[in-house]
């Protein structure tokens, strides 16, 4: 069964460093998402991406964050200058796009645990 994959599974970085989190969405999906989950808290929406551009972003997704689809398969989240409060699990999700957002299933990847020291 097709699944969303993410690399690395765990990333440790120093405050102020740049990190790039990578995701390979399900191959025929058209909509891609990043969410984050701070330890013990709820899953929070960061950004959605469609047709090579950002469709929607939350207040959390400030100028320090960017997303890119550098080729036909990868979808990346870059944090330019990490802060301590960026420590969280980051989930990538994708959906097919044949239906609207209200009716289409989003499939989540296994996540990347980011630890900022």
């Amino acid at each position, binding site marked *: 069964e097709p699944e969303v994959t993410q690399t690395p599974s765990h990333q440790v970085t120093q405050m102020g460093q740049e990190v790039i989190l990578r995701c390979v969405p399900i191959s025929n999906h058209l*909509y891609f*998402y990043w*969410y984050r989950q701070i330890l013990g*808290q*709820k*899953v*929070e*929406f*960061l*950004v*959605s*991406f*469609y047709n090579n551009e950002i*469709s*929607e972003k*939350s207040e959390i997704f400030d100028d320090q964050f960017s997303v890119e689809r550098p080729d036909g398969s990868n979808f990346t989240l870059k944090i330019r200058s990490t802060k301590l409060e960026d420590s969280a699990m980051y*989930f990538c999700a994708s959906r097919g796009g044949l239906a*609207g*957002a*209200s*009716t289409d*299933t*989003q*499939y*989540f*990847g*296994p*996540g990347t645990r980011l630890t900022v020291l």
Partner: protein
Amino acid sequence: QQPVQSPQAVILREGEDAVINCSSSKALYSVHWYRQKHGEAPVFLMILLKGGEQKGHEKISASFNEKKQQSSLYLTASQLSYSGTYFCGTVTYSGGGADGLTFGKGTHLIIQP
């Protein structure tokens, strides 16, 4: 605004039933239920659509009450594998856009043998 889930936590014996509620202050077009086990990704359970239909998945079913702007997840004859945190994610806009899901804080379900 995030949906409100209740209860925050439930402890059950294997074989008992549970109900988890998700309510919103905004009109809902759909509710998406996920289960997350510790350290893992959320796993999709089902979508409830505007129209009040009830869906089922094995011994897990759910309902969606449009008027009350709430959804309930029913776990019948719970099994040890049902343990985890249950999240409802809501969509408050029916357009075909790439809207992200707004999740509640989750309900922790512990099933004891």
